[in-house]
């Protein structure tokens, strides 16, 4: 009986080619039409330490890797033990390992010692390709022998390693030939179209470019650097502007400068960098300069755990900075959503002349998925600045009070429309003003202009039975596991799930969702329940509201969430 979804784990040291094995498997499968999702884990070593991946291959849609892999390839038990919590063994796990396990470790029944290195040596004279040997074996176990494999190997850049190593791959396929591995074989992919493989950081960059972003400024920081990398690679060809700056304050200054001169500008960072941007965030808000910041969240506070996900920057995104500097906060929950939401974010920044902060996180940003490429091909309407009509010449008022509180904006360089901006409180002309009335009026302008966003129902997704009174509210990548857990427990009819991608200002649809429940669960990955408290601050919650929140450092698992999810559905 073939499965619709199989999870493969690989563990070893960096030098064993662990991540390469996972990536190759993912790409090969994508050519056969399989969806997939790969999680990567590293030990504390900067390079070459313990490494693991956990990877789901799915015939029907992207699903999360199971908590324990169905197949584990282990190159090195010592390294495995540094990351075992990320690829734990279940009794059913099929283990393919190279060297004998340490005496204390009890392996599942179906464990096989396989000399990958030897097979590599036999095929090529060196054991450099033991990961390709293992790939061959896994490929056979999964029944991944579709007709497109050789085409893929010939044409896919990402598979060029296999091109020179077809013999090694084939050697792997022949190993353990005498054993049967029932239940590991994958069903044929439902939709055979080749899937696109990318991670959230790449999707963010590509979405931004699609929306017309032509100016990116960055400073390296884990786990956001891939966005900068992608922008550095792509912007020059698009005649865009790219600078790796001296720090995150400069990043924001450069980006604001580009924005007032008419380019759609953005940056990406993680927690510590976001902190440094705080003062500039206030300036962007006060002077109403369009700007997008993507924050790929990692564990805080301070340097925290740079390589692991957490959802703990929400407070700063919403409330960070002195004074009152309204901004928009959004959060995608999956990789295609990263793309779509960047289009939205750039659009909103332009339309509302506002700062938009997009909260991604380490596992969304760095986890590779194979998905349908529909989101890339879709049509996206783009928004541009509201422009002065022409009649203003001579008395152009940059901060004119209009009905929708959005003033027509000229950009530096346009004839007849010179104006002066300032972070000081200012009047409609942009000139400094030190009186209460103007201060109040401009606060009102900056807050009110964003209110129409609350009606954007499309930025909130509700899954499950809309009529039931049990609800779960969650945001960002946690939503993926919540949804999987509900499915896994078969509770789709018992509980509905609301995932807002616009978080601030709070969409009306979220309020309606909360009002329609009598029992509510909020799930998020941070210690203090930031989203929960943000919701409470805005509206009344059902008496029976529970919060499931904890610090990051390990992904939520289905097992972990099944308690609270079952409880709310009951």
């Amino acid at each position: 009986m073939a499965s619709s979804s199989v999870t493969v784990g690989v563990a070893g040291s960096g030098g064993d080619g662990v991540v390469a094995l996972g990536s190759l498997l993912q790409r090969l499968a994508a050519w056969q039409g399989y969806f997939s999702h790969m999680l990567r884990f590293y030990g504390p070593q900067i390079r070459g330490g313990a490494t693991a991946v956990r990877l789901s291959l799915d015939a029907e849609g992207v699903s999360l890797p199971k908590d324990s892999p169905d197949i584990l390839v282990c190159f090195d038990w010592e390294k495995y033990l540094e990351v075992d919590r990320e690829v734990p063994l279940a009794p059913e796990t099929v283990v393919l390992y190279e060297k004998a396990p340490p005496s204390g470790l009890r392996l599942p029944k179906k464990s096989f010692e396989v000399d990958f290195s030897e097979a590599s040596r036999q095929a090529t004279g060196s054991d450099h390709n033991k990961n390709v040997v293992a790939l061959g074996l896994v490929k056979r176990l999964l029944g991944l022998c579709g007709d497109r494999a050789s085409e893929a190997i010939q044409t896919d850049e990402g598979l060029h390693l296999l091109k020179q190593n077809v013999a090694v791959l084939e050697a792997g396929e022949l190993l353990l030939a005498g054993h049967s591995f029932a239940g590991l074989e994958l069903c044929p992919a439902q939709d055979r179209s080749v899937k696109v493989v990318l991670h959230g950081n790449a999707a963010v960059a590509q979405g931004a470019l699609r929306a017309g972003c032509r100016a990116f400024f960055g400073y390296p920081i884990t786990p956001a650097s891939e966005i900068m990398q992608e922008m550095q690679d792509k912007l020059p060809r698009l005649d865009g502007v790219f600078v790796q700056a001296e720090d995150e304050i400069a990043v924001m200054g450069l980006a604001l400068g580009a924005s007032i001169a008419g380019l759609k500008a953005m940056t990406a960072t993680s927690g510590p960098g976001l902190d440094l941007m705080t003062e500039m965030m206030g300036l962007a808000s006060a002077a109403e300069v369009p700007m997008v910041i993507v924050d790929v969240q990692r564990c805080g506070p301070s340097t925290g755990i740079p390589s692991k996900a957490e959802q703990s920057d929400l407070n700063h995104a919403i409330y960070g900075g002195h004074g009152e500097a309204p901004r928009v906060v959004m959060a995608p929950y999956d990789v295609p959503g990263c793309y779509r939401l960047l289009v939205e974010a750039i659009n909103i920044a332009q339309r509302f002349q506002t700062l938009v902060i997009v909260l991604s996180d380490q596992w969304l940003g760095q986890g590779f998925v194979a998905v349908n490429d529909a989101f890339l091909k879709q049509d996206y309407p783009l928004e541009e600045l509201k422009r002065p009509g022409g009649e203003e010449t001579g008395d152009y008022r940059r901060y004119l009070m209009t009905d929708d509180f959005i003033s027509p904006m000229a950009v530096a360089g346009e004839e007849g429309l010179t104006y002066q901006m300032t972070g000081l409180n200012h009047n409609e002309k942009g000139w400094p003003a030190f009186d209460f009335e103007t201060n109040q009026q401009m606060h009102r302008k900056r807050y009110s202009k964003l209110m129409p966003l609350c009606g954007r129902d499309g930025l909130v997704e509700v899954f499950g039975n809309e009529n039931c009174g049990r609800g779960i509210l969650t945001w960002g990548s946690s939503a993926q596991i919540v949804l999987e857990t509900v499915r896994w427990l078969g509770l789709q009819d018992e509980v509905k799930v609301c995932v807002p991608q616009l978080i601030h200002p709070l969409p009306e649809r979220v309020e309606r969702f909360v009002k329609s429940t009598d029992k509510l669960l909020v799930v998020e990955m941070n210690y203090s329940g930031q989203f929960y408290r943000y919701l409470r601050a805005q509206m009344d919650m059902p008496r029976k509201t529970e919060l499931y929140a904890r610090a990051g450092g390990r992904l939520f698992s289905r097992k972990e969430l099944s308690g609270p999810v079952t409880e709310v559905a009951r």
Partner: protein
Amino acid sequence: MMMSRADYRTGVKPVWCRGCGNFGLLSTLTRKLFPGLGIPKHKALVVSGIGCSSRIPAYIDTYGFNSIHGRAVTIAQGAKLARPELTVVVIGGDGDFFSIGAGHLPHAVRRNLDITCIMVNNFVYALTKGQTSPTTPHLKRGEGAFLSRQFYPPVDPLLDMLSYSVSTRASFIAQGIATDTAQLGWLLEEAVRHKGFSFVSVLTPCVTFDPPELFDTIREKARYLREGEVVELPESSPDTPWVHDPQNIGLALRLAEVSLMEEPLLGVFFKGGGGMTDAGLSAG
């Protein structure tokens, strides 16, 4: 389109004290620099930080941005990259450029974009009411008549800018004085014309917080630098005088070592070769 001088002033009345040196800079910009170079007002962008001097954009009818303390030079670079046809001028105080903003300068120099920085050096944090700034002359407690709260030696803006420029050899570095608007106008024109990063230090009296002796001393001891003429060194200098050559960075470094309080030199210290093309940055 011809611009008259008046075209470059907005209707906003400066908040500066009567006699403040900033008025000299304002008129140099609106009456000399912009009309002199024939820059249409929409083609200029003036970015400033925070301080007395940084209030200037509201008074100049070009595009303007009175931003935040110490960061004007970053905003200016972003705008220049986005619209290379803009004439971008950065204005800030000594605190702005060399205290909170000091970290941005070496990087601006090596990027070498075609922008012009004007540091209004009044040797004091004026807007915040008279604290010592990084350029406040160094006197031990009680040793001198003024500014005795400064305990560590001042930074040396010209020397620093020059040392940052050693690798690029492409910057323009000059010093003027707000009370000689004729020379200042010329220096600023040269700076704007220079293709690449330019830095002009403008010695500027703060009539409210500087002790009057400070500027009296500066005016009295000031000497003009002229290309091809022998540099007048202060008497204390052990150096043999040389002919001023602003293309020679080695000589420029020696010039910058002359202590400002002993002999403020006015003129072009260094004028390097052309910079990289702006495109270099986005080709990255």
